[in-house]
């Protein structure tokens, strides 16, 4: 049943600090909607269901996602929904809508303008509101606690982490949407200061603004919209305990569980949503990705992490690899919450089931 739905289109805005963009995302969304509609030969009226991912805390205003509806054009009225999470979860809702036959073509989009806020501080608000959030632990510091556990357990070294960053930046040189790219060695990166010991700047995703959009369609429509649709062969998400001190931060059971539930199996390419360098190492292991798998050929979230869009973009990029024929089976991953608490896996295949 899963392969009845395929990704047929993807677009993303370049991840940048956008001084011209509002927190409603409209200025970033209008051009990428136009781009994806052009590629698929669709108009907005062909979309049976829209679902977005964004955050009011990041936007600094209530119901900010309602302002974003300007970009979709809601006359006549559109069937629309929203998740206060990365839009990968909006895509999951859209997928369910198509599977149940309520829509033939659905569009998921995510947007975030992090540069206008104090991102690492805003993200403290996703922590336990009684026992943790009142201390305002920022997202970088929390990730650093996880990184140190791995360092002291011998799971990785600071050099391993720097090598993830160096490889990601090298890959990102061919990705015009990346915010950070370039040729740099791990040794050069290790000479730079800590921002939250044991994390250095290269271990942390840059703060940038961006948006992404993915269109999916039922089997009946997918082939007419896309020469080689990326069939969704599995799609699942799971969550670990919200108590940072009560879960094993060096295991990511929700990622492994989501991959198993999605029937991930062997893939040629994986786009992992790892906003911190050590998290790529954790995810490779949790998802069982061997040496032969091309991981984050886009440069990954370490080279551009538009909040609430970056996870959706991982799925879009994995789908693009299938649609272009570069891969026959690819995996897109998204994360949400502190220290990889919640994980989503979408498996894409060139072959319908």
């Amino acid at each position: 049943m899963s392969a009845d739905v395929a990704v047929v289109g993807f677009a993303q805005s370049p991840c940048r600090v956008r001084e011209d963009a509002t927190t409603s995302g409209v200025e970033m969304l209008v051009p990428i909607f136009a781009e994806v509609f052009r590629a698929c030969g669709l108009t907005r009226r062909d979309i049976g269901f829209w679902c977005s991912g964004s955050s009011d805390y990041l936007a600094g205003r209530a119901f900010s996602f309602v302002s974003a509806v300007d970009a979709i054009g809601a006359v006549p009225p559109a069937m629309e929904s929203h998740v206060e999470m990365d839009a990968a979860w909006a895509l999951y809702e859209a997928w369910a809508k198509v599977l149940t036959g309520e829509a033939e073509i659905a569009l998921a989009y995510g947007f975030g303008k992090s540069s206008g806020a104090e991102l690492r501080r805003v993200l403290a608000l996703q922590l336990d509101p009684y026992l943790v959030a009142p201390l305002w632990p920022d997202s970088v510091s929390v990730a650093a606690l996880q990184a140190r556990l791995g360092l002291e357990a011998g799971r990785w070294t600071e050099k391993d982490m720097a090598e993830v960053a160096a490889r990601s930046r090298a890959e990102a040189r061919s990705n015009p949407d990346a915010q950070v790219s370039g040729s740099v060695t791990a040794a050069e990166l290790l000479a730079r200061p800590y921002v939250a010991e044991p994390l250095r700047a290269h271990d942390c995703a840059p703060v940038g603004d961006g948006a992404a959009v993915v269109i999916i369609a039922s089997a009946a429509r997918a082939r007419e919209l896309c020469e080689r649709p990326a069939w969704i062969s599995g799609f699942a998400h799971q969550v670990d305990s919200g108590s940072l001190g009560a879960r094993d931060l060096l295991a990511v059971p929700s990622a492994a569980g989501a991959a198993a539930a999605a029937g991930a199996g062997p893939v040629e390419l994986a786009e992992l949503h790892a906003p911190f360098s050590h998290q790529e190492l954790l995810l490779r292991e949790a998802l069982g990705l061997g040496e032969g798998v091309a991981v984050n050929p886009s440069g990954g979230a370490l080279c551009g992490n538009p909040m609430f869009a970056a996870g959706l973009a991982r799925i879009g990029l994995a789908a693009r690899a299938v649609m272009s024929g570069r891969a026959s089976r690819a995996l897109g991953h998204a994360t949400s919450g502190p220290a990889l608490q919640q994980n989503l896996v979408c498996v894409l295949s060139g072959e319908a089931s």
Partner: protein
Amino acid sequence: MSQPLAESAPLRAPLEIEFDYTRSLGPVLSQFMAALAERRILGARGADGRVHAPPFEYDPVSAEPPAELVPVGPEGTVVSWSWMPDPLVGQPLAEPFAWALIRLDGADTAMLHAVDAGSAAAMRTGLRVRPRWAARPAGGIRDIACFEPCDGPAGAAEAPAQDTLPAQDIGAERTPGMTIAPVRLRYLHTASPGESAYLRGLAAGRLLGQRCGVCGQVYVPTRGTCPADGVTMTEEVELPETGTVTTFCIVNVGYPGQRVTPPYVAAAVLLDGADIAFQHLVLGCDASEVRMGLRVRAVWGETGGISHFTPTGEPDALYETYARSL
């Protein structure tokens, strides 16, 4: 129409928002917070025998409420730590400090809190720490101000005598069963190009709108993108300062920060030549005199922008002239 670059750049301004969440604690956390006020720390024993500190509300294994809350700590051992060289607003310490996962003596899980270690060189995994209590308990996790290094060995039979708090201070600033979590967030807010043009127009005493190239509707304020068609609007339209009340309500309720004394009227005003009404105040007449179709004119404030609208005295507009904009 070309404008100097500086004039066409979007307007930006700092924005600070504040809101306090008042939260009910429930049975488990009420006991936990009440104990903190007495400078004691409680954990919860799970179905598997492990002690969680801070306590869970529902057992992650059995999903049952905790059978018992047990004293833990107050000393503990650092399990992991990171260094915060530039503390952010609201964090426990203003000087550089460590975030740490701390396993309190007698507990099997760790608590996230701050350690006032002075320098990163003084921090290490395995470091023994003890709580530094807030001077006056407020009924929240911040009744532990932070932790600080201490010399006590792990699992010492008797923790150093708990600090005692004068009885009259216990609960002085607390509401049992409740906790208040203040939120203060800062942004550099950017207005859209459309909003910026409108605001610049207001400052110059002009009312600017935009016409959609697809549906032809005129929107005021300018908003950049047609919400009906999802396309960027580029045609600017200057509108007169007269219009029609399409609908309204009489505000009878007072609230903090209110600038007009109730009763007063908030109305949807359709400017002449616009297709979409916008909300504004209608003053200068008794609230009971405001009606659908009332003709109004903008009254400009002394610092730029429209203060409110007021009746023009013209005959009312016919319903047909504004029905489609309701």
